[in-house]
């Protein structure tokens, strides 16, 4: 049973778990009796996972530090998988699936397989009733991907090691075609593969294609090839995915700023007064050396007082010099959203096109 095709509730031995250690640290594991998962938050016994529900929080062997045990989904897998190539991220893959109307039961061709990120997303959506044909020309990448799909029981995926640009898409057992209704080409030169598609696409349905290329020169060649091979509605789009985090920004009112400036000024003047007084005293002392201990006590008290005032920092409306926790109730805050420090400003260009099934003879409108 594949965790990507069916839901499970309770974790058992041999189950696939994504250990959520932190936002940027999700570790895929297969639960095995007596195994230990070592993380920066401690060591976690696989034995303590068995019998727990997916979504549970568990503590380390030492009793502190925790992780969450998550059920695999293609979206979480995309965040945790070992990168062998540049991968297709969720904003792109989800748009492609929606625009090509891929649903349960769809038959899809993917070339190349790459790191298999999109493969998992396709497999989940087209489900057990659909079929995915994926092609990878790099031998060792193909081996790794194939092993991974087997480990994840993606039974609806047929992986083939093949350079589709040269040898096309026809495979054993599907000599009469894959009956594919959707095509995804993530290749250096998709225009070379487009010529091979008529043999494998559906003869009874409208077929959609998406070519995924980072360079505009590739888009030009792809669009030309699509047009020459009878594809229509050619349109290229670019997807911009952004992430935001809710934060709080302190409201620093100008009246408080003025209040603070006034306070500083007041204390400065007080300080000058005290200093002048002390200076006068010193001079007096020098004049009449024998004023005695009484005065020296008075002086100490002055010094002490100024020091205390300095430590209180006077009027401090924004907590300057203090460690303030974001959202501290003693201050005023505004809810804001913070963008990521670095965004993916370009993933690839997505060139879409469609081809109608020729079920009735199509006559030229001019004849």
């Amino acid at each position: 049973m594949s965790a990507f095709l069916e839901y499970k509730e309770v974790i058992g031995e041999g189950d696939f778990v994504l250990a959520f250690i932190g936002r940027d640290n999700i570790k895929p594991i297969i639960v095995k009796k007596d195994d230990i998962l070592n993380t920066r938050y401690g060591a976690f016994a696989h034995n303590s996972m068995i019998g727990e529900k997916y979504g549970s929080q568990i503590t380390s062997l030492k009793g502190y530090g925790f992780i969450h045990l998550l059920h695999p989904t293609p979206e979480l897998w995309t965040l945790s998988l070992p990168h062998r190539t540049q991968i297709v991220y969720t904003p792109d893959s989800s748009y492609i699936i929606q625009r090509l109307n891929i649903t349960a039961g769809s038959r899809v061709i993917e070339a190349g397989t790459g790191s298999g990120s999109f493969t998992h997303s396709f497999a989940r959506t087209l489900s057990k009733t659909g079929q995915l044909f994926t092609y990878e020309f790099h031998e060792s990448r193909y081996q790794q991907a194939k092993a991974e799909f087997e480990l994840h029981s993606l039974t609806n995926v047929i992986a083939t090691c093949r350079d589709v640009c040269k040898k096309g898409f026809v495979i054993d057992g599907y000599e009469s075609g894959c009956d594919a209704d959707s095509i995804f080409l993530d290749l250096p030169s998709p225009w070379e593969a487009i010529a091979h598609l008529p043999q494998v696409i559906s003869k009874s349905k409208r077929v959609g294609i998406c070519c995924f290329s980072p360079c505009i020169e590739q888009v030009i060649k792809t669009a030309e090839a699509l047009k020459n091979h009878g594809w229509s509605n050619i349109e290229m789009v670019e997807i911009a995915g952004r992430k935001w985090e809710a934060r709080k920004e302190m409201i620093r009112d100008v009246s408080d700023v003025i209040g603070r400036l006034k306070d500083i000024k007041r204390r400065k003047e007080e300080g000058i007064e005290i200093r002048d007084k002390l200076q006068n005293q010193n001079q007096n002392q020098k004049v009449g050396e024998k004023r005695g201990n009484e005065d020296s006590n008075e002086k100490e008290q002055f010094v002490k007082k100024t020091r205390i005032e300095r430590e209180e920092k006077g009027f401090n409306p924004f907590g300057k010099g203090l460690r303030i926790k974001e959202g501290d109730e003693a201050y005023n805050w505004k809810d804001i959203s913070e963008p990521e420090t670095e965004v993916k400003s370009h993933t690839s260009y997505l060139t879409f096109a469609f081809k109608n099934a020729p079920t009735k003879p199509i006559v030229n409108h001019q004849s």
Partner: protein
Amino acid sequence: MDLSLESAEKPVSFAKETGVITVGQYVLIKLPSKGLKIVETRSDGVINLGKFGSFEVNGILGFPFGQSFEISADKKVSPVKSLVFELEEEELENMDQETSRESTPILELMKNSSETNRDIIDIGSKIQGITSEEIELFKKQNNDNGEILISKIIESHKGFNKKTKYSQEKYITRKQQKFMKKFTVEYLSSSNLLKYYEEKDLSKILNLSEETLGLMLNLLDIRPGGKYFVVDETGGLILYAMMERMKGEGLIVVGHENEHPNFNLLQYSNYTESAINSMIKPINWLQFFEPENEKLIFNEQTKEAIEELRPQKKLQYYRRQKRIIEINKTIDFVTGKDSQFDGLLYCSTIYPTTLIPNIITKIKGSRPIVVYNQYKEILVELQHLLSKNLNVLAPSIMETRARPYQTIPGRIHPLMSMRGGGGYLLWGTRVYPKEGGVIAVGRGFVRRNERKKQKLEKEEDNDDNNKNN
């Protein structure tokens, strides 16, 4: 008590015809003007496309979706290659030479063009020698033939030869959009239904864009056979998209705020009423929050009494019985102690911070929580709230925007305008916090650990790990 909500009888056939235009379904019509229309393909029916003419439904049946047609005078249609007459790149290049290719009147007129636009002088509408009254008359004389009319308009255009080829092409396309009696029939997918409302009334679908719809459905991890709790204020667009992905397997419980739910967009879905009823179970918020008061009581009659009823009344009795059992089952299923759902999708203008925490507990562990809103500010507030809620892991706000390009080789550039907005999503995962709390490891852990050895102080303890979550 049987809490299973899945119908024993599966609808006969859930699969819709998505390949070929068939009778009795809703389809999307694309007009040369880029306008969209939803029509029903009634057998022997006639569909009126306004100034683009009328046609008989029977003429389009059996053709694959995506096919374009041209209307002739007698409401008959003939299939054509495309909606607007596109000029092939080679044709444009070879036009100066004498080619053996079949030439059309329009292509013939394009033989004279200018390298640049240097000779064009803007004299306004005087450049066109034919008046709109003359156009109307000409239309009548020529059986409303678009191509002949366009040729006439070009002939009468005094500056046409001074335009560049590209500019001539653009001019012809514009005239075709206005005068050609053509249309394309498209399968009414969820994306196409969305596009229709994009033009018609965007506020009805809460400004949702195709890319955000796609992202929300993927983040929700929709699988056939899954059980989802959904709040859909788009009138059923999201439900339709989910039904398409699930292909009849599974369950969608819909929380709504009225006495009866509003899914009027589902009428276009081509799913039968029984298919919709078998998958979609509504529950209103009063039933959700006060189940014991809201469960309906059915006065069961004796067999003899039922037999004595008139056939009409008998039918009514059984229908009422079925409805009440259904509602009570839904209430029991949703308000039961166990978490039941494989995901939450919330798309509503009801302030989410007040409602979402009450639904989260109904969702199973490690299942997605996806909240849509047109406005990021609403989701910012929700993220602040959920960051403190130990039932939700790693909530964050996402945005996706598709930027379309003019995709003509050699003249590729982003379109000068695109739709703004499209909404935002909050995505998190439902988790089960460890009972009794946990001690987090992070900055200051050793110092803190020494300071208060065994003391479990939930708030502070979760501090550091939460920063990572």
